[in-house]
């Protein structure tokens, strides 16, 4: 049986009659990376704030390691590490002194552990500098360091890749995977779709405070959302004509000089290719494309339009 380290049951947040989070339920398994995905204002951060007790829960329950956050906050928080939005640090202190602030008040943080964490986030060279001299990426890394100090088994990171450069994101991803493999449950939120796809085992898509669906990332190849792109050198419309004559049930689409067919069956693909070749059409390439989480997300949240519009980070 899988163990759940974090469970939300019908969690609701209302502020002044407005429902921000509406009956949200999900469970995070031990050792998985769980993503909260949604457009800005969907209620991701509000949900995270309720989990860590920064705001009250209007209705429903949050259990961390089977301990109710509302009833037994201190015990529930002992094995939780978190960054809520940007990691805000004490500018007037050094990175090390910032870490010490949290090391002091968390259970069982040894000097070795502190050194280990600093090395892990690669801040050894700047740890004794004042935080006000840090770049956003360095702050983010110090934020991750403080969240990991006490070896939490539930790690909650709100927009963790904000401000990290590609190398930093890559490192973070690898490290989170390592943590997860060692049994830590990691919850990350983001509105960056591609990133979630690369990082998470499962992704909950949230819109307007409601759960739209939960996706298993690793399995999506098996789904039917596969399209085959035929690159045509010549008249694409003629190619489309050829194929639709053969089988009227095929869904055909033209994008530029590509003919897109919705099918996942290898035999069908080979068959279609043969038909095209026989009709004297030059096929210069065949490509199998899985519908990305991104596309599915946009489809579901009906935002449509340019992907980049959604992916622009708004948090500083």
């Amino acid at each position, binding site marked *: 049986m899988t163990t759940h380290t974090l469970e939300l049951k019908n969690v609701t947040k209302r*502020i002044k009659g407005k429902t921000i989070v509406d009956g949200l339920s999900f469970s995070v398994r031990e050792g998985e990376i769980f993503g909260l995905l949604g457009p800005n204002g969907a209620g991701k951060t509000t949900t995270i704030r309720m989990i860590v*007790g*920064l705001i009250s829960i209007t209705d429903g329950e949050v259990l961390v390691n089977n301990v109710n956050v509302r009833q037994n906050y201190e*015990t529930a928080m002992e094995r939780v590490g978190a960054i809520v939005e*940007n990691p*805000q640090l004490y500018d007037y*202190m050094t990175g090390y002194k910032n870490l010490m602030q949290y090391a002091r*008040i968390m259970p069982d943080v040894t000097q070795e552990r502190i050194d280990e964490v600093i090395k892990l986030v690669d801040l050894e060279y700047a740890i004794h500098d004042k935080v006000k001299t840090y770049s956003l990426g360095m702050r983010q890394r110090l934020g991750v360091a403080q969240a990991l100090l006490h070896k939490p088994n539930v790690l909650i990171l709100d927009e963790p890749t904000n401000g990290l450069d590609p190398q930093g994101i890559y490192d973070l991803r690898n490290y989170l995977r390592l943590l997860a493999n060692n049994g830590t449950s990691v919850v990350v939120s983001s509105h960056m779709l591609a990133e979630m796809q690369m990082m998470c085992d499962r992704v909950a898509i949230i819109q307007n405070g409601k759960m739209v669906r939960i996706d298993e990332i690793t399995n999506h190849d098996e789904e039917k959302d596969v399209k085959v792109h035929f690159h045509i050198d010549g008249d694409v419309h003629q190619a489309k004509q050829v194929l639709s004559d053969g089988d009227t049930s095929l869904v055909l689409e033209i994008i530029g000089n590509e003919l897109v067919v919705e099918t996942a069956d290898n035999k069908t693909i080979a068959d279609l290719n043969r038909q095209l070749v026989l009709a004297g059409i030059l096929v210069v390439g065949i490509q199998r494309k899985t519908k990305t989480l991104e596309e599915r997300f946009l489809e579901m949240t009906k935002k449509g339009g340019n992907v980049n519009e959604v992916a622009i980070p708004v948090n500083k």
Partner: protein
Amino acid sequence: MKWLSLLTNEWIKIFSRLRTWFFILIPILIIIGVAVYDKVATDETAHENWKQELTANIEADKKALEDTKKEDGDEFFIEMLESNIKQNEYAIENNISPYEKTTWQYMKDMAPISFLIGLFVIVVAGDIVSSEFSKGTIKMLLIRPYSRWKILLSKLIATLGFAFAMWLVVIVSTWLVGGLAYGFGGIDQTYIVQSEGGQIKEKLIVEYVFANIGLEFIELTVLVALSFMISTLFMSNSVAIGVAMFTMFAGDLVIMLLQDKEWIIYTLFANMDLSVLIDGQNQFIQELTLPFSITVLAVYTMVMLAITFTVFQKRDVKA
């Protein structure tokens, strides 16, 4: 769990700020400065004939008194003149020079420096909660395995600790500087006061100094509670510092405007300056006594702290 480490953290945060060191340094510099200036500028032989000087003062006061009475002048002023005359006469009779200076006299003279301490304490207390909100660091602090009241309590105790420590540093510095400048003796030195019944009395200066030290602890506690509350309610250090300073400095003004109202004695303003009540001289509101004022302040402090803790416990943190 490890509540004391929360307190350590707050203490470290206070002392990691550069301004904290200025807050400690400035009063010390003033204490040294005043003593040095006094030593350099005052001719110590100037008051050798202090009895003649006082006699001259008495004559002048008497003349002023007559004039004021003729013109039907201010009653408060008349009382003050009468009291001055009596005190000076007593001084001459009993050979108590008002110009004799020792470290205790210096401490009594420097007592108003407590206003400065109050001011700095207000800044620290007004900042300790609100700055965590404005910088967003409160989030990093509240998600720890501690109930909110424990975190707030650590901040309160740290601020009080800072206030008291600063006051003690100032007291010791004043005693030391005063002693070096004027000698450490004078423990039995007296000064003259007019008690309520118009009687002239001698009192030990040391008594006044220690009463003042003790009362300042009470005043500091009230100031901390006040700016702490406003800091928590409005999450703004400027509002907290503003309101607390207004209460401290504009108190006399408010009292003057409202002095004919009966309820004035129950306000915070009327009770904020306890040191006036030690001798009961120059007291604005005659009804006030030390036990009464301390009781009023205690009630206010309890209520303010109760409000602070309740609000903090329930607040949704969106910083």
